[in-house]
């Protein structure tokens, strides 16, 4: 109570009353600086967002001079009955869950290890972070090459050499094996990002806590579970939410590695949307699909923060 009053008093004292005394201060100056960004945001984000909603109620024609017809909720009705779209949605969710968990576990493990390294920490950090800043196009082609069929593929070559498989696998011919390539790319490319975030959190934990726990006779596993994990809880949540949103937006890797094939079985929400819009020129339908996806993402994100994000449970030290 007493502390609070002091802080409030201190704040009051810091109120910048002298600012108002400055002769050239104008109330609108901050707005002038804010407006350009706001205008760009309205023009490039908000306007297209609503325009797309508008498009989703039409059989939209993109060629100038052709007439678009209003179809009401027909595009949404088609979407709800479209089996391929729901397959694409469930593929997207599965992709998000598998790659997010994979990235978090791998990223955390690497962060713990890198945190222990005394010599060359920067080197390892850079090496593991490198895939994050590499172009999706480049690494997708790299993975197509790694997962080539027959004995010419590196993965096939290694697996047959060490005797895991007898015959080389045609990875892209079946959706189950094609996913292996897509998932592993997603995890490999993203783990560096969660590693860096986890590493920063780990370095913020005071070493005394571990020392005290060691004196109390705890083993490494107990220290990880009872000290590290609770202390970086909010970081874990942040990484989880951010990666989930990213996972739902998987696009380039799938487009380039399988193109949604075979038979649309590896289609994800965005590749399917792209195919309907730019492949079949059904832009109204594509817009409707994107709105359904947007609703799903919002629901998932809100649920996540509700479930894991309750305030006031942070461990303090």
């Amino acid at each position, binding site marked *: 109570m007493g502390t609070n009053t002091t802080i409030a008093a201190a704040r009051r004292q810091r109120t910048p009353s002298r600012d108002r005394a400055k002769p050239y201060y104008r109330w609108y100056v901050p707005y002038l600086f804010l407006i350009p960004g706001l205008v760009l945001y309205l023009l490039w984000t908000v306007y297209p967002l609503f325009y797309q909603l508008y498009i989703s109620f039409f059989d939209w024609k*993109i*060629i*100038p*001079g*052709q007439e678009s017809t209003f179809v009401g909720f027909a595009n949404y009705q088609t979407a709800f009955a479209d089996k391929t779209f729901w397959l694409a949605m469930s593929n997207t969710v599965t992709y998000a869950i598998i790659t997010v968990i994979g990235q978090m576990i791998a990223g955390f493990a690497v962060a713990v290890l890198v945190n222990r390294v005394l010599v060359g920490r920067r080197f390892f950090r850079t090496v593991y972070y490198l895939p994050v800043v590499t172009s999706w196009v480049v690494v997708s082609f790299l993975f*197509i090459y790694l997962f*080539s*069929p*027959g004995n*010419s593929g590196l993965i096939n070559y290694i697996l047959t050499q060490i005797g895991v498989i007898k015959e080389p696998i*045609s*990875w*892209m*011919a079946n959706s189950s094996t094609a996913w292996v390539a897509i998932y592993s790319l997603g995890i490999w490319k993203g783990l560096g990002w969660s590693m860096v975030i986890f590493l920063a959190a780990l370095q913020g934990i005071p070493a005394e806590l571990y020392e005290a726990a060691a004196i109390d006779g705890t083993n490494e596993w107990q220290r990880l579970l009872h000290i590290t994990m609770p202390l970086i809880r909010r970081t874990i949540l942040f990484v989880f939410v951010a990666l989930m949103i990213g996972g739902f937006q998987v696009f380039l890797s799938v487009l380039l590695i399988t193109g949604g*094939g*075979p*038979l*649309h079985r590896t289609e994800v929400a965005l590749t399917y949307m792209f195919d309907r819009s*730019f*492949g*079949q*020129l059904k832009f109204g339908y594509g817009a409707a699909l994107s709105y359904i996806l947007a609703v799903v993402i919002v629901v998932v994100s809100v649920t996540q923060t509700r479930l894991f994000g309750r305030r006031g449970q942070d461990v303090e030290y």
Partner: protein
Amino acid sequence: MKTKLVLSVIVLLFIVVPATLAQDVVTIKFWHTYNEVSPENQTLTDTLIPMFEAAHPNIKVESVPYPYDGFRQALLTAAAGGEGADVVRLDIIWSPEFAAQGILMNLSEKMSDFQQYADAVFPGPLSTNAYDGAYYGLPLDTNTRVLVYNPAVMPEPPKTIDELAAMCADLPEGSFLFSDGGTYGWAILPWIWSFGGDVTDPEIAMATGYVNGEKTVAAVQFIADMVKDGCFSDGFIGSGLDTWGGYFGGTIYSMLEGPWFYPTQESQYPDFKVGAALMPAGEGGPVSVVGGENIVVSASSTHPDEAMEFVRFTQSEEYQLEMSKVGQLTVLSSLLKNEYFVNHPYYGIFLEQLQTAKARTPHPAYTQIETVLGDAAQLVLRGEMSAQEAMDAAAEEIDALLAGS
């Protein structure tokens, strides 16, 4: 006062001079998919465009090469924005769709001397430019696929599909008699036609009774059996197998290839002995698929006259002959009597195959029809559906597409 005058003169110069210069030289954009790896693109940019520009000092041609994958989308989105190419080298299967979308110029109406050019080319390739009683382009090059085999492992090419199937018995493990990259029309239609089947009736009004007819079903079943027995490669089910790599490595005995195969082979495997024969015959004969490109002008071109002048140039014997030298088979009937073609080492077999080759369904919905057909065949090849069942379902869907729904 004097300064004002000087300033106005300078300003005027800045406005007027560039404007008059711009009137003098017009730049037209030519979008195409000439292969940048093989010598096609080089012939265009180093020989043909300079030749055209020398004869037309007021026109500059900007060559914009695209990879084939994604070209259709690039063209459609550019058309949507009212931007993009003046002249396009367009795959013949896209012409009806693009004409129906209203993004191609009606050349039979806008080009005064159109008939003269139409009379000079083969009627088959010309017909791929027709839509709704008008012509929206001229043929640029034509081609077909013939059976390219490796004489080292296949001393005699099979004349019939039965002969090919019989070779299966002696096939060593890890080798394939034949390979292709999927079940798209370009790959499976030669088999369907050679079996005597088809996708639609000749009037392109109906698929039922054709795509699910006895012979088409038998063709799809045949490919499925061959893939299952390991005689044809699993490239058919989209494994991404490198067919050319397997062919030059000796594990793939034969494949269907177009004339562009030779320039690449000559530059990369000059010592490899290549054999070529007609597509193996079935009940329908040795039928292959017609490919090729048309030259079209976009409806939104701001320089239609210059664009049409370039179209005329592509129909000249010089252009056609130069491109024929790099694997782009000519569409000019007069040119076949030219010494170059009479003595040519490999065009003979392609010209012979073209006698019986068929064109893919010239319909605005072809892209969707092809997807339905390919997906149905894919289900059969994967053993997930019987051939009859899959083709019955495809017939229903294609009928709906033909009816325009």
